[in-house]
């Protein structure tokens, strides 16, 4: 009796566990529990680090010998290849959406703004890290120049690249948009941004994982809600594979 009970109990627990896991992950309740856990992490991080605390910055000698490119390594278009060869003379970064004064900025305009240079660590969701020196204007500078409206709750980062046939995009809330280290980088280690790292422009969202740092930027759009952007989950990886929108964990 005890023997059967023991084996039965163990088998039952194992079967229940495996079954319950896949059931829970697929259900709406399961999804909302996962989302709640993600929200608690974000709330805990924001409570501990506040709005302004900086990610660590390193000395030049701490940089990794190279900076890995991952995800999209180029933009598959004739326009991009032509621009890449010429130093992106016709590339434009749109700043629009819920703003008073939409902007269309060329690279020269972006380089003419006050710049921030920071040596930071890039952590990929896969687990690896690289360290590099990034230069560019703070996103907050661009948003102030365009005069973002009060109703804006998120900033959507629009990109030229596609992955698996979809346009890459990402989004952040206004806290991260106005974080001092959130910059629109046009240079890596003192050189114009390499192709594999998102030339000519990429976002640096230093308190979150790498997939938030959108590359090949074409637009910055202020929105009230993410529901009508892409499939509504706030980013390419979020829509495509269920990645966490808050990538600070």
């Amino acid at each position, binding site marked *: 009796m005890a023997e059967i009970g023991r084996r039965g109990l163990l088998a039952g627990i194992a079967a229940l566990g495996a079954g319950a896991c896949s059931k829970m992950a697929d259900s709406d309740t399961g999804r909302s529990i996962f989302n709640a856990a993600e929200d608690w992490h974000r709330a805990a991080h924001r409570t501990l680090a506040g709005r302004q605390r900086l990610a660590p910055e390193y000395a030049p000698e701490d940089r990794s010998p*190279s900076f890995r490119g991952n995800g999209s390594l180029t933009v598959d278009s004739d326009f991009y290849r032509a621009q890449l060869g010429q130093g992106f003379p016709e590339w434009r970064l749109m700043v629009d959406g819920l703003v008073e004064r939409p902007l269309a900025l060329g690279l020269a305009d972006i380089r003419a703004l006050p710049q921030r240079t920071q040596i930071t660590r890039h952590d990929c969701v896969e687990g690896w890290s690289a360290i590099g020196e990034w230069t560019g204007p703070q996103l907050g500078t661009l948003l102030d120049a365009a005069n973002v409206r009060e109703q804006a709750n998120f900033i959507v980062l629009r990109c030229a690249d596609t992955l698996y046939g979809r346009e890459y995009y990402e989004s952040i809330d206004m806290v991260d948009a106005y974080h001092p280290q959130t910059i629109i980088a046009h240079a890596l280690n003192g050189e114009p941004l390499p192709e594999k790292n998102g030339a000519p422009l990429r976002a640096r969202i230093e308190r979150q994982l790498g997939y938030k740092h959108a590359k090949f930027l074409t637009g910055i759009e202020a929105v009230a809600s993410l529901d009508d952007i892409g499939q509504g989950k706030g980013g390419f990886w979020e829509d495509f594979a269920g990645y966490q929108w808050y990538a600070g964990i």
Partner: protein
Amino acid sequence: MRRHLLSTRLWHWVNAVAIVVLFMSGLNISNAHRYLYWGNYGFDPADAWAKVIRFPAWTTIPQRYDLAEARDWHNLAVWPFAVGLLLIWIAMLVNGHFRRDLATGRRDWTPRAFIASLRAHAGGKPAAGGYNPVQKVLYGLVFGVLLPAMVLTGLAISPGIEPAMPWLVEGLGGRQSARSLHFIAAWGIFGFFVIHVVMALAGWRLIGEMITGGRRREEADHG
């Protein structure tokens, strides 16, 4: 008096579930980049100190490679794990469980005490009232080192935590070192888990006691 307090039993089973979920989802996450490094950065396999095997799907949550869902499970299960660890430590210190049953004295650390504990076990004599020196040292290692190490190294590899606790990442030798230590401590806990489950299955009564509370054998406490 019960052998196991309600707080101990509740924590034990909640933590058991949390650890299994964390470990199995962690193996899935490990499959995303199977190299471990020391220091702050690391992405080139040539710089890795270890290449980890690809963990087969039956060992992972979910039972296929899915980094996003594995992270969902990991980020969920860490709440009962980390909060539970904090609460059980407070409970153990307040209710005397730590001082009475787990704290070791100098006599517990002698080779003679270790050998005597192992002999008693091999002889089939179940531990009398309290824990023997080997058990105390192992539980101490798990409660005092491995479980807290999982929480601290886990916090250290979260980019959203680092601005609040940069000293933690520095103290662990950098972000990739923290990730390596997270991996090593997880396998330390796995080793304990295997021994623990084998021992518990050998004495089926012990599992029942961890559910019902059992009865403390008063006379044996002095033996």
